[in-house]
């Protein structure tokens, strides 16, 4: 699809999502949802999938989706980030679908994509280099922590290696695993420990290609995570700017003091950089040229932006910004949780410095 057309659709879709969130889940409501035991509003999930058809936008046309381009996907995640919406959105529509699209076709894989497009199913990816063991009859056994969206996931993507150490990737039904919740810094980003006990799996990437499939899934979903981080950072900056314009000390708005102004200007600089870098990477995703270096670069800028804005917001809000009641810390928590997804900081820097210096 031509980029211009993609951008028009992206704006329409974003407006639809924005409208629904304004009615159903603003920042405060989203916060309430995050504190429920499920940590997620399945009704809202269904509304987004059926009323707006959001889920189908991420799924290829041949598998029950509408296959909108990366600009449309990014527009959706920018809106979700604005309210820090909890739920298996990124784990399913971001990393999960992106990984499945890169996987070898099979009846089950194609069917799971169709289930995601209609909002019936959620997907979680066991990343972080975790590898289960395969027994003689190709059943998976093992356990992995730090899995985003593990609780309630209908399907899991996971690597497993055979007796000779050759690794493949599999798709496993959520009914075949047990999940133990972990405590997360961010209630809107839930993680769990997934245990496989002689679980059966469908091959997603054959012998020797398991790690590469998960890496490609991370690379081809990085733009969606970055877009969500951008949406959150923008909302956070807008909130603290609004506060700096009305909060008075020494008889004047604190936003008129250079110390405050300059920190906000620097926050804005970071946001513009993330926004413009994301725009370039979206074109690379569209062209199929995005690689691990570009994904790492984007996530590095996204992580830096999220942290910079979150820290500035807490500082400029002053005492109120340190309270549990205020929303400032929610953005810091989200920034911390997001930073360890897909390609964590140490790995990003390894990827980037290797590309620069050609050292391994």
């Amino acid at each position: 699809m031509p980029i211009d057309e993609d951008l028009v659709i992206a704006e329409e879709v974003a407006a639809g999502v924005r409208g629904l969130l304004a009615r159903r889940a603003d920042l405060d409501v989203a916060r309430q949802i995050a504190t429920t035991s499920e940590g997620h509003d399945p009704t809202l999930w269904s509304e987004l999938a059926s009323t707006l058809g959001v889920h189908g936008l991420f799924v290829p046309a041949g598998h029950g989706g509408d296959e909108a381009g990366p600009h449309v996907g990014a527009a959706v995640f920018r809106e979700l980030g604005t309210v820090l919406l909890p739920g298996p959105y990124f784990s399913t529509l971001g990393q999960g679908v992106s990984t499945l699209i890169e996987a070898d076709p099979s009846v089950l894989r194609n069917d799971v994509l169709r289930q995601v497009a209609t909002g019936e199913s959620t997907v979680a990816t066991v990343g972080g280099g975790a590898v289960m063991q395969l027994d003689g009859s190709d059943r998976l056994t093992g356990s992995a922590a730090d899995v985003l969206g593990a609780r309630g996931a209908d399907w899991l993507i996971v690597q497993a290696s055979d007796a000779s150490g050759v690794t493949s990737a599999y798709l496993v039904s959520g009914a075949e695993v047990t999940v133990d919740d972990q405590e997360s810094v961010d209630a809107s980003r839930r993680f769990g420990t997934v245990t496989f006990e002689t679980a059966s799996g469908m091959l997603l990437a054959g012998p020797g290609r398991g790690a590469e499939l998960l890496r490609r899934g991370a690379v081809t979903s990085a733009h969606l995570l970055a877009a969500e981080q951008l949406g959150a950072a923008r909302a956070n900056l807008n909130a603290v700017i609004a506060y700096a314009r009305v909060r008075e000390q020494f008889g004047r708005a604190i936003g008129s003091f250079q110390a405050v102004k300059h920190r906000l200007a620097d926050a804005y600089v970071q946001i513009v950089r993330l926004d413009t870098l994301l725009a370039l990477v979206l074109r690379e995703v569209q062209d199929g040229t995005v690689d691990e270096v570009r994904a790492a670069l984007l996530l590095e800028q996204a992580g830096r932006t999220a942290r910079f804005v979150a820290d500035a917001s807490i500082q400029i809000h002053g005492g109120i910004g340190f309270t549990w009641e205020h929303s400032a810390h929610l953005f810091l928590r989200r920034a911390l949780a997001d930073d360890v997804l897909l390609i964590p900081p140490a790995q990003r820097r390894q990827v980037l410095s290797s590309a620069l210096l050609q050292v391994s």
Partner: protein
Amino acid sequence: MTAGTGLAAADELALREYVRNWIGEHLTPEFFPAALARLDTDERVEVRRRWERELLDGELLASSWPVEHGGQGLEPWQEVVIEEELGLAGAPDLINLIGFRLAGPVLLDVGRDEQKEHFLPRILSGDDIWCQGFSEPGAGSDLASLQASAVDHGDHYVVNGQKVWTSWAMHAQKCLLLARTDRDVPKHQGITAFAVDMDTPGIDVRPVRQITGESEFCEVFFDGVAVPRDRIIGVPGQGWEIARLTLLYERGSNFVYLAGVERTFRGLVARLRARPEPPAGDVITRLVAAQVELAALQATARSYLDRLTAGTADPTEASLIKLGWTELDVAIKDLALEVAGTAAVVRAPGAEPSAELHEMLASRAETIYGGTSEIQRNLIAERLLGLPKGG
């Protein structure tokens, strides 16, 4: 590509290819910074004049000026592409930077026809190098409070006062001068711009030695200097508007400098790769931080360029790029000096300072000139974020 309409019709790829080929043929070693550094000041000026001649012959200078005034009539984005390629190739700075990038565009925008006909050809021919008489000892960031006065004597004005940080004033034939012509109106409204001949009696130019040891900028004293009335640029009282215009043109030059930052970064990476030992961990950390910052800043510049092409750019956004490239350049040159080690800061008696030391010291000017980093942040906060002005 042939003269005339060729460049104006070029798309980005064709233009880049033309400029790169041209650079390959014309940017000979005599123009490299290392060669320039070995010359004395007068020789350096001569070589730089020659470089400008080359650029003009290649249709790569004053390229966005209208064809009837000796330019190529290129779009702003096309000029930016040319400047980026020159910056990437390490082309030397212009000696008549002020003439080509500030005074010329100001005259084109607000000059009278006879002023354009008189001054513009003399910039193109190399007869007039211009300097910029803006800053004063008491008026730096707060330029509008400048005190140099120009008093109306009918057919001429008499100028008294002092200007500072006037680059290349000792080689200049013309000065784009801001002086106060009316003290009874708010400070922004009482300023007028003049084109002053530097050989007018009463002008005294004194070079100022800089951090680097060189003397490229000057103090300029005006003592009863008579300036004909027809040397007013625009109308009396329009000086502040003209100053704002020149700052915008100046920020347009950010693309050439941003390309220069990329060149500096690549040079540092190449030196590190040539070493048998991998760099220390903290060097890698800083290098990766610079890599990310450079890529993100280039994306911002690219987006600005796209919107400049579409005619939808907000001029204040140039502050994002000026602030960005200057602070990044300082960081990279700090790192380059540190990596070069003791040999870069201690040298044999009489030896020239190392390139790393010279560049690191010279970079300190970048976050000050053309609007300090503090002023850029104020502009971003007030104009783009809507924060209130200070009390």
